[in-house]
């Protein structure tokens, strides 16, 4: 019985939902996707060393190429096991469709507080791409919807020379650029992501954004 009540407590706990939207289009094949996978591995192990994250963070991974998939439904860091990511040979970057799926998941997976239910912490979104949205109309249609979700932070990352910052700027003020999408740069990015997630548990007014830790030198903030 004692055990039973502990499990229930765990369910009642406030979660910090973290959505990772990852570009898996053809151009990500090879070294880049391996770097992303290593980065995710490091992100997860670093978060497991953070007592706040270990008890609160829930992660979801949505990938987008020609297809959009929620590779990992919102899952507690404690029980999470990273799925494999296999990009297709080639094809478009359906970032708009990915944000559309995200919007749906935010509505269904994230608990809003009510009189009788405990709300989650405001979710965080990290989006990484090495290109630009191929479905630009869909992208522009969904951006206001995502902005209306009142997320605690939207951090968009343009990785590599071909990545376009300006579209990402339409989604969020926080756009970072990586000059190269090699493994050490991506690793620095993911380490920064893990540090950013650690700041998500602050009491804030209803509309304020979280403050991010200073990025490492490989990560340029686009103003």
């Amino acid at each position: 019985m004692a055990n039973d009540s502990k499990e229930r407590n765990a369910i009642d706990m406030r979660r910090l939902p973290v959505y990772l939207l990852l570009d898996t289009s053809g151009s990500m094949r090879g070294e880049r996707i391996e770097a992303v996978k290593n980065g995710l591995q490091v992100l997860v192990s670093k978060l497991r060393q953070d007592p706040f994250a270990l008890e609160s963070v829930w992660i979801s991974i949505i990938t987008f190429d020609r297809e959009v998939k929620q590779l990992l439904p919102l899952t507690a860091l404690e029980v999470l096991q990273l799925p494999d990511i296999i990009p297709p040979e080639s094809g478009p970057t359906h970032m708009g469709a990915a944000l559309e799926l995200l919007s749906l998941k935010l509505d269904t997976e994230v608990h809003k507080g009510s009189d009788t239910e405990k709300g989650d912490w405001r979710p965080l979104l990290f989006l990484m791409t090495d290109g630009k949205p191929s479905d630009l109309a869909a992208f522009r249609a969904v951006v206001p919807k995502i902005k209306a979700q009142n997320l605690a932070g939207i951090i968009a990352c343009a990785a590599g020379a071909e990545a376009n910052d300006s579209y990402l700027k339409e989604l969020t003020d926080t756009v970072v650029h990586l000059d190269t999408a090699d493994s050490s740069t991506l690793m620095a990015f993911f380490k920064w992501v893990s540090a950013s997630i650690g700041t998500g548990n602050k009491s804030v007014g209803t509309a304020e954004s979280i403050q991010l830790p200073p990025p490492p030198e490989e990560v340029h903030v686009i103003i």
Partner: protein
Amino acid sequence: MRKLIEKLLREHQLPVKEKQQLFFDGFLATADIQQAAEQMLNAQNFIVESWKEKSLTDDIVQKHVAIPNAKVNKPYHFPFDAEALGLHEMGDYKWEIPEGLGITFEKEKALFTGIPQQQGEFILTLLFRLRMSPADKPFSEKKIRLIINPDPKSLWKDLPSDEQDPYWQPDSEAMTASFGDRTLLIASKRGRSHAHEGKFRDDSFASSFDQATGWGIIAVADGAGSAKYSRRGAVLACNAVVESFSALLASEKMISLETAIAAYMETQSEESQVKVSGQFIEQLGKIAFSAQQKIRQEALSKQAEIKDYATTLIFTLVKKYASGYVISSFWVGDGGIGIYNNTDAIVLGTPDSGEFAGQTRFLTMQDIFADNAYINRIRFKVVPDFTALILMTDGITDPKFQTDANLRNVAIWQKLWQDLEGNNEDGCKVDFNGTPEKAKEELLNWLDFWSPGNHDDRTIAILY
């Protein structure tokens, strides 16, 4: 065999013609052809069987088998059901587990069990044979990753806050005072999330009791985690309300307040209630506003923004009369104020909460006093008696009440009171019958209770 060889010849564009049938029979009957055909069949069988074995082995090796993550110090229990995992062709097997993990595999029960000792990512090796393989066949290997999470309790650091900071305040504080025929205890402690980063306690409190008039005030505030000077905002707010309260007691305003209270106590009429309410709204509104003003002045003098000092504020005025206690409260932000009386709990307001956790309203927001919006933040109540009047920050209400609905649920208040009396996992007890000085220390200890995910600053004021 005839068919097999006919097929072979056809594949080499040498089909046996109709008129060659008898001749073909003779060909098949020769000893060297018989022998060669047999060898061919054996070789084919060997290839097929070998492929079957290799392929089934590879199926098992490639099959995604996940073992649930473990946690240091938390008993681990995972039945390994090969059939359910889809390893149908697996025969004999055993597990190789790195030494010192604290987890073993019980072959008879097919169960992983133990109390994990080391955190990290480890490789477990499944050594197996296929059902079809003979017992002397060497084992094949399958590697499976096991994640053992650290015990979160072991990860929290306790770093001191910077005492040189102009806005420094002690990481924990407690007080006790006599409130007429009652005793007040207040304890406040920096949360683990702040201690982990060497940050400051953002909660504050203040109180005062006036022997001459019998009026007392208790204030509790919680500075916003996201605002850089919020700890000062909380301190200023609590001190300002106590100061304004003293000024009020010395002023002529008290005459109209006491007159209104006396009339209400005597008649209990709706009209007299409206009058008392009006008095409290006016006086508590002024007291609360003075706190906002105080913070505004401080922000101006430091050339900072008022929102840098964002804080919640709850306070109550209380006085004992012959027929009972008059209690009036002001509430902005989260946390809670309740009058607990064994079978009854009266909550003096509603927490400000948003759709997400951690979202609330602050005293420092412009619109708090605009358009008389603060009127609903003020309550008053007359009770003949009470077990305890309790004011708490969300560091207590989040873990102990969880939802706004629970704050109105007397059963949860009863549980909290029993919890304070020692009915908890650690047997941590506050003896309300002992000396107040001892109870104060006990209350500080009680604030260390463990609740996953709830590591905010904790402040509780108990008038009993």
